[in-house]
């Protein structure tokens, strides 16, 4: 079954509820009334063309100050977190793996030690994803695309989050890295972590053990949601996003005016 917005109701309890969210960055409107519900233990994915608002949505849920909420709210575990600073949301169990993390003047080892001290380390130790050789480097200084993706994913999971927001963990990497990243994510899916994954071309989706719902973003809002993510992906590959937009048709035209 498919739905025209992010309000897909599954049987489990709602962990994250985004209601009519409108967000500005500097003076540009990037989210125009987003509605989304993620239940506990669910894995959702976000598809959509560039600049459709996917990263903006993740950044806003995390609370990065650049993204200003001008209308709407974000509820997490029943608590309204719309005005909370990012570090408090992190402490509550939300973690974001950045799509393009900035260079940071901190040694990776040092960041890892601080994170391990700040968050309860889970029953099983987080797999190093083969990035140990980068531990003494300054974070993201001169890292290749693949190295940056793995490191970012690794440090994000060190936070033992309840809700992991992964922004394109599969872009700019080779096939082997894709497999190890997918296996890494699957381990956490198995343990019951909720996730919202933005994917680039859907590469990682086919390797994941479970995806409950796929949403398509376009022009700052979620225009389509489906409980059959792989069929949706197939549709997009065949007709492109414009094909999907045509399918959803009138509701989009209305929304854009």
């Amino acid at each position, binding site marked *: 079954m498919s739905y025209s917005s992010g309000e897909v109701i599954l049987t489990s309890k709602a962990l994250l509820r985004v209601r009519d969210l409108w967000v500005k960055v500097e003076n540009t409107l990037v989210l125009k009334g987003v509605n989304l519900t993620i239940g506990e233990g669910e894995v959702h994915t976000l598809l959509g063309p560039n600049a459709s608002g996917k990263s903006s949505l993740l950044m806003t849920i*995390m*609370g*990065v*100050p*650049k993204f200003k909420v001008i209308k709407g709210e974000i509820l997490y575990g029943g608590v309204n977190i719309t005005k909370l*600073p*990012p*570090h408090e949301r*992190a*402490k509550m169990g939300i*973690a*974001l793996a*950045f799509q393009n*993390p*900035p*260079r*940071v*003047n*901190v*040694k990776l080892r*040092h*960041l890892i030690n*601080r*994170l391990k001290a*700040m*968050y309860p380390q889970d029953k099983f130790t987080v797999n190093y994803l083969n990035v140990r050789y980068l531990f003494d480097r*300054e974070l993201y200084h001169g890292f290749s695309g693949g190295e940056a993706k793995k490191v970012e994913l690794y*440090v994000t999971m060190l*936070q033992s989050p309840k809700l992991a927001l992964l922004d394109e963990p599969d872009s700019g990497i080779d096939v082997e890295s894709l497999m190890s990243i997918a296996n890494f994510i699957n381990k956490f899916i198995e343990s019951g972590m909720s996730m919202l994954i933005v994917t680039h071309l859907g590469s990682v989706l086919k390797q994941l053990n479970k995806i409950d719902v796929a949403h398509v973003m376009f022009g700052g809002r979620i225009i389509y949601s489906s409980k059959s993510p792989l069929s949706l992906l197939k549709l997009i590959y065949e007709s492109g996003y414009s094909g999907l937009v045509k399918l959803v048709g009138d509701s989009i035209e209305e929304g854009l005016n």
Partner: protein
Amino acid sequence: MKRALTKKYDFGELKKEPIDESSIPKAIKGKMKYVGIELEKGSGNYVQIDHSRIYQFVSEYLRSLGVIVTSTTEAYEKFTWAKEYFWKALRVNQDFYTSLTHSYWRHGYFIYVPPNVKVTQPIQACFFVASKGVAQPVHNVVIVDEGGELNLVTGCATMSNEGLHVGVSEFYVKRKAKLTFTMIHGWAPEFEVRPRTSVIVEEGGTYVSYYVNLYPVSHLDMCPTTYLHKLAKGYMTSILLGKKRSFMDIGSRIEFLGRDSRGEIVSRSIVRDQARVIMRGHLIGRAEKTRGHLECRSLLLSQRASVTTIPQLESYVEGSELTHEAAIGRISEDQLYYLMAKGFTEEEAVSLIVRGFIEVGLVHLPPQVRASLRGVLRIVEKLARG
């Protein structure tokens, strides 16, 4: 000559008042600790308070190997061979302050390490100004003989808010010898500090220097120069904290005189309040197959402070590869937001970034020295936050 100085300072007299460790007041020892000097930890110590109160010590073991720790005045008098090392790396008339120190010499440390002797537990030296308005022009000489190794840790501190310290230092690192030199400056807002340093590294030798400036000064200018001969290596790191109304013109220079020599200069500064900081780096290539790199970075954290970086590359020969990078900026918002998203408060994020910014150059130093420097860096981090 003294009349040429901008202020009237007390130059005292040239005499020696030997003191022992127990007579150094606790308050002075406390300040010394801030600049990394803990007398119990040195395998040799040289402490000079004002003009003439000198405490010198070298362990039985090092003494038996022929290591010498004394004042330059005493060495000049006692050892005829020592005279060869005075005013050879530097000229008397290099500038006003070198001439001043030649005319008004008030001791300084003389350290000699014989061939193949390794002094791993550091020898420490400390200049302390206890009385008001003192001028402390000192001449230091260090010789590490062939195949020898010396870790020298020095610190400067004061109880008086105003004074003048001129440190003329000549370091001789002989063939295949190694000298690591750390200097922590903890002066005061009305203090004038003029170090003049020259280091000669002979074939296959290594020189590592690590300098930290902790406190505001009225005027601090220095540009230590390292001369590298064939196959020699030099690494010079400076960490500068510019605060209040400090004026600091701090540089490092490496001159590649022999082929296959390697050198690197790294300077990082954090500048705030109304401080004015000039960071210089100068690499001069005079031999083939030499490689030098210079990095100058500054975090400028206030509207009324200023930073100027002056990286300079000079080459007189084909085959000398010299590179540089320089950058001045604030702590970027993107970095802050990234760390905040990982769970750090803004304050914690700034701390992490400042700490990461100043933690450079430690890799060239031995573990014992590194450990005590981490404590100093924690102080820098705290003071950097204002």
